[in-house]
């Protein structure tokens, strides 16, 4: 079993959803990024997704996009992120997943990326602008080093496409709760239950639900069979941190 799957299964066994905070690299600023990440790690994060900033994040909502823009203007880049991960290897208890757009990865070189990600203790990658059809080279490079390429599916992803991903994925499957881009939403879209059940049928992997999650009450509103094994929070966490809130406070809501 892939280590990311293990982390989530362990939470399930303990009767709770696994917690997956998303933090843009270099957020809230360069000095506070690693302390914030370590605080998430110490306060119950099972997996941490680190966002690699990109100039044109087509899948992200305004909050993540702004965080990305700020990080870029502070000079945050993939090379430094990987180097700093190597320096902290063994210090992070949670699973580590990098989420970023394809072109910076291409520029780094897919082989180099797989090698350095392994060195830095990265367990998985999420590349939103890489659909299955174009993923073979990256998938192969990562597989060799035991790094999972996490599929990202949503309400308008057909069942055949989910099965396509299911046949060749490890770790977990990431289900986006609303049509479209990331961002904090007041209510989970009504279609989320339907999407979750379709994903349940297609994947044997655990399911993480993301995009728009703020508080546990949102999950309680879902029928039990549509509840995810893991929850991902991005925009809400970034906003909370930007308003001076702490990582510990944010995670405490979910424990």
């Amino acid at each position, binding site marked *: 079993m892939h280590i990311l799957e293990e982390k989530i299964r362990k939470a399930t066994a303990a009767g709770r959803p696994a917690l997956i905070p998303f933090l843009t690299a270099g957020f809230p600023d360069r000095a506070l990024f690693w302390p914030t990440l370590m605080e998430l790690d110490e306060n119950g994060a099972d997996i941490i997704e680190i966002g690699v900033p990109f100039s044109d*994040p*087509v899948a992200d909502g305004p909050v993540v996009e702004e965080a990305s823009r700020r990080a870029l203007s502070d000079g945050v880049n993939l*090379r430094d992120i990987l180097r700093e991960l190597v320096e902290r290897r063994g210090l992070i208890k949670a699973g580590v997943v990098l989420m970023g757009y394809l072109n910076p990865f291409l*520029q780094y070189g897919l082989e180099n990326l797989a090698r350095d990600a392994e060195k830095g203790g990265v367990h998985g990658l999420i590349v939103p602008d890489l659909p299955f059809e174009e993923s073979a080279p990256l998938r192969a490079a990562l597989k060799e080093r035991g790094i999972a390429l996490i599929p990202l*599916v949503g309400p308008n992803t057909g069942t055949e496409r989910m099965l396509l991903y299911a046949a060749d994925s490890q770790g977990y499957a990431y289900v986006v709760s609303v*049509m*479209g881009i990331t961002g904090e939403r007041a209510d989970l879209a009504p279609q989320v239950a339907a999407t979750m059940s379709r994903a349940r049928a297609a994947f044997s992997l655990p399911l993480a639900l993301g995009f728009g999650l703020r508080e546990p009450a949102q999950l309680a509103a879902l029928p039990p069979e549509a509840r995810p094994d893991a929850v991902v929070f991005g925009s809400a966490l970034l906003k909370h941190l930007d308003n001076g809130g702490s990582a510990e406070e944010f995670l405490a809501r979910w424990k």
Partner: protein
Amino acid sequence: MSQSARYGIPDSRGFFGAYGGQYVPEAIKARLDELSRALDAALEDTSFQRELESLFVHYTGRPSPVFHCANLSERLGGAQIWLKREDLNHLGAHKINNTLGQCLLARRMGKKRVIAETGAGQHGVATAASAALMGLECTICMGEVDIERQHLNVIRMEMLGARVLPATSGQRTLKEAVDEALALWISDPDMFYVLGSAVGPHPYPYMVRRFQSVIGREARAQMLEELGRLPDVCLACVGGGSNAIGLFAGFLDDADVRLVGVEPGGRGTAYGEHAASLCLGEPGVLHGFHSYMIKDANGEAGCVYSISAGLDYPSVGPEHAQLKDQGRAEYVSVTDQEALEAFFALSRHEGVIPALESSHALAQAMKMAPGMSGDKALLVSLSGRGDKDVAQVAEMLREHKIRQPEV
């Protein structure tokens, strides 16, 4: 529409050779697949084709003529320069060929609303007009900075019934307008995204090329009619590459016709001073497709600059990338200064004020003509008229940033 067997048709994953494709999230992929199916069906349907052709004639004013620049050619002393007059289309540019096609398709798909991004406003105005004609609700996303710079076009769009939505994040220009428009599009299944150039994920480059290929189809027949033979060289400016691919489409199978795409060389070849993606960029993935692009060392979209707002895009249509690698088309760049000289020359000697974008193509023709014999013919895509640029050029003159060349 007749289609070349060798050129212009991407493979089943949307690639022109190594370029193009669909590098998009699943949520967008599903919408693109829906669009691909609808486009294929429409292109097979003669009634769709007939309706579009009828609009081209009665609404746009096609065919646009070809015009022999006898005065300019004589002054230059060499090859004869001809213009394909896309500036004479309704609204004054080639953009309308594409927006009519896409809005007609949107209506056929049963969509209620269209959305488009715009930088300088040309594509926004063309989309707003096409949507008004077809009874579609229209939203145009435009950066806050551009809204200020292009106020007249904002008024035009609003008069045409469009809602102009300011993009307020980041640099507040075209890129942010694209982000905003994409976000609204993905969250609304009844909305159609009208893309303004031969860029983006498949099927957009292919679709835009099909709708713009009317330029080359007409031009080929017109040159045969006028000269009894084909032109020796076809030239067009390349921003995203839609007017260029539209012109080239008519001549790709004519191996003796040289095809020259002209990119904005701006103030020079240093990074940040130009937007010459094919001449100076490298392959990469941006905005959902693989092509030559201008990027920084980390693979971020690079800084670009051009005197003309319609050309400063950091990537380029994937079919052009393929044509460059195949050597079937050549890509060169001309500077702001050269484009301005062409702008003044055509105004002064032929009584036609060209768009600054189109002036780039003309500038390259003016460079080439003197070295060629008088029986050769250069055909330039005059993609738009220059009315929109007159105020900008006047201001540069007033501030002594440029000088009007002597006659």
